[in-house]
């Protein structure tokens, strides 16, 4: 297992380098001169050129790429935002906790509620409970984030006055963004866990367990759930990345200065240090999240663990 983790970490380094090169190249080729965008259309060519020199974008592609890779991976200097004039890492460090708070809380909620609903729907397959849950899931997945956000604001902020509609002043400010963020996830997890449960519900070992007289809740908890959780774990792994990336829509509507809004502003204003650094940071985080997902497979599924073990023996 240790060998496998080390191998994955080394692959991760290559992946992050590749991601850095790709994002650098894409932003280099993106239309629009960052210097002109920063200074406006009425700046003349001389001033634009001075700005390009100041930003370091007057140099050839390979030289710029080399400087970027050296600073990022050797000096761990992610640069300073051209728009915000603050080091990217320091801005990320300030914004990340807000984004993670929303994303992580929403993920816990959507997994807990989604899996619970999925199991309920599966064990009542074809009955009214199943239909009701699937209708709710369909409604959750169909409702656009911004619309749900506005409806929640109208209800809880305007009509009832229980929660603030925007800002980051207190813990209450995060309640609506978290609820709004978890709707889609609840629907996905409910549908995914329902179909996974249905796959195992008629398996021979379940029939055997029932024949042995085991209680239904024990069968669900001990025999069905571990096998049905694998697809949910995969989606959780993917979800971990979006926890850190944040949601520009949610952050914009609720005026949360998070990573999603930061990246979006960076893209719109061709703030290359912000875009590059955020992508590299997300690439690192995604790779780690994927590794953790794979390790979770091994932890939960003895067959996969056995594969690792046999791999070690063959070497």
């Amino acid at each position, binding site marked *: 297992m240790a060998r496998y983790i080390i191998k994955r970490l080394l692959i991760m380094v290559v992946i992050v380098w590749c991601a850095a090169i790709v994002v650098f190249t894409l932003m280099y080729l993106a239309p629009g001169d960052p210097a002109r965008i920063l*200074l406006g259309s*009425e700046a003349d060519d001389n001033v634009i050129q001075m*700005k390009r020199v100041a930003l370091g974008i007057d140099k050839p592609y390979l030289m710029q790429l080399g400087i970027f890779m050296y600073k990022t991976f050797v000096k*761990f200097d992610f640069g300073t935002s051209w728009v915000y*004039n603050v080091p990217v890492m320091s801005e990320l460090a300030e914004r990340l906790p807000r984004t993670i708070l929303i994303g992580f809380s929403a993920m816990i909620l959507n997994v807990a509620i989604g899996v619970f609903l999925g199991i309920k729907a599966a064990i009542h397959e074809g009955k009214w409970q199943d239909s009701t849950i699937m209708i709710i899931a369909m409604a959750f997945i169909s409702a656009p984030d911004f619309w749900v956000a506005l409806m929640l604001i109208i209800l809880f902020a305007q009509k009832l006055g229980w929660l603030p509609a925007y800002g980051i002043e207190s813990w209450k400010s995060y309640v609506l963004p978290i609820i709004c963020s978890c709707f889609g996830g609840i629907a996905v997890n409910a549908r995914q866990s329902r179909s996974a449960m249905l796959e195992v519900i008629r398996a021979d070992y379940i029939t055997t367990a029932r024949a042995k007289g085991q209680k239904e809740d024990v069968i669900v908890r001990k025999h069905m759930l571990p096998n049905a959780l694998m697809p949910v774990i995969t989606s959780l792994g993917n979800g971990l990345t979006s926890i850190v990336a944040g949601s520009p829509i949610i952050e*914009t509507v609720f005026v949360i200065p998070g990573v999603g809004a930061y990246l979006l502003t960076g893209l719109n204003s061709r703030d290359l240090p912000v875009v590059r650094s955020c992508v590299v940071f997300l690439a690192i985080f995604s790779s780690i999240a994927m590794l953790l997902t794979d390790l979770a497979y091994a932890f939960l599924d003895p067959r996969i663990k056995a594969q690792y073990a046999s791999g070690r023996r063959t070497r």
Partner: protein
Amino acid sequence: MNRNFLTKSLAVILAGAMTVSMAACGSLTTGSSDSTGNTAAAETAASDSGTAVSEATVSASSSGSTGSLYPEITVALPSDWKDLSPVNLNQDSKPYFMFNIYETLFDIVDGKFVGNLAESYTNVDDKTMDVTIYDCIYDSDGNHITADDVVNSINWVHDSGNAIGYDYFESVEKKDDYTVEFHWTKKPMSMGVLEQIIARAAIFSTKAQGEHNFATDPVGTGDYKVTKCTTGSSMTMEARSDYWGNDPAIAAKRAPYHTATVQKINFQIISESAQAAIALETNKIDVCSYITADTLPEFQEGGQYAGNYQVIEAMASDYYQINPNGGSKFGSDENLMKAIYYALDNTSIAKAMGGSYIPAKAYGSSFFYDYDKSWESESNYINTYDPAKAKEFLSKSNYKGETLQMIGLSTEAVKNAMQMIQVQLLQVGINVNINAYDQNTMEATMGSKDGWDFVVSLTGGPSLVKSLGGYGNTINADNNNKYWVSDDQLQSLLDTANTDGTNDQEHLKAALDYIMDKGYGYVIADASSSIVATKKLTKMFMREGYYTVAASTYSNN
């Protein structure tokens, strides 16, 4: 694989991860941009009371606050200020507060330069100007501002790649403790051409610059100090009790917006207008200028929330216009562009834009002090909707039914305008494709002659003559203006309208007539804003078209 190698690799990765996380607590730097502007009719000197700045007076009767400050006001802003460094003072949401945090050598009040930090100035010769600042200027950190700080501030803007409008600037040097000497590359035709250097460059303490990151923690000489700032969310600034300009003798010489009227001002970013409306309805904010037209009646007399709020109509220093791309086949076709202008009914376009846009009747906007209302009685393609004349010009043009590319900002107002323009042009047989972009993509698109034929944009400035700066032949190496036109005659007319002695309405009119004769521009509507404000506000103060809550008056009752 070698075990040692693997161990070392893992160590390097872990060390890297640790360093990355530690870098998150790193330090800060600076550097950014500035907006532009050429020219300006220029009268000078430290002013009289300087009260020519516009005020949107509200019907409520009140004498306003005099001695005591109004305790607290919360203002909604539609966009993030991003960076509070002393550059870009007129960009994004900054004009609403930056001139209360930082101060410049001069202010511009109705086109005239009024001493701000500058107590006096002398033109030593054609290319040398001495400026003496007050000897009692202190910033919010208590640093004494001297000539050294002025030199450093001006040079910092110049050297950081933000020197827009610095064409005349050669150098600045200290003459004595409170006097600096500017050296110009050539004789300025008026003080207006020096605007960016003497009236837009914030002066700050060199010591404070070294101790603070102005991007989030600004230290200026203004009447307010930022006490809390969360980029992307909110900012609070409070009136300075130790403000150097509180001295009545000094205040009397300066522009009127340097006297704080509110103790504490909170700026809250709320990008969605629906959210802002809810914030008003729940009394979370006091002022908002971007409530949509369909929601405004709720805050007007007779509306559900009229008890707490009022709607103040204020003209802005901007106007929406159409400009052809001189570098495109169609944009350079004078007959085609005139056909387009005559085919447009700007009254219906202004109505379609929503809000309170006022259709233009002549070139410019009545907001400007140098605009003459009598121009509106003359017949021109701006105040004449004539499809027959449009077809006449169209028949003389080289247009053969191709599809023109119209570009514009993706704001609701511009998108609505473009849709109406598309329909009206189709009625005379001109096909137009709409391309709506965000500000940055539009800047990038206009940076090339290809891909667009005409643009719907927002233009403005402190005066009409300054708003014409975009027509000047200065933008790129080919001597074109921002619309890819190079016209020496227009440049000469603009120069004349900007030069001391000839910067009058007669010469401005000559430039405007030439612009319309050549079909270089068409004004759709004057921008105005409907500001929803608490009824406690009795007089809204407007600075260069931007409402300034810090200098407005309030009723404490």
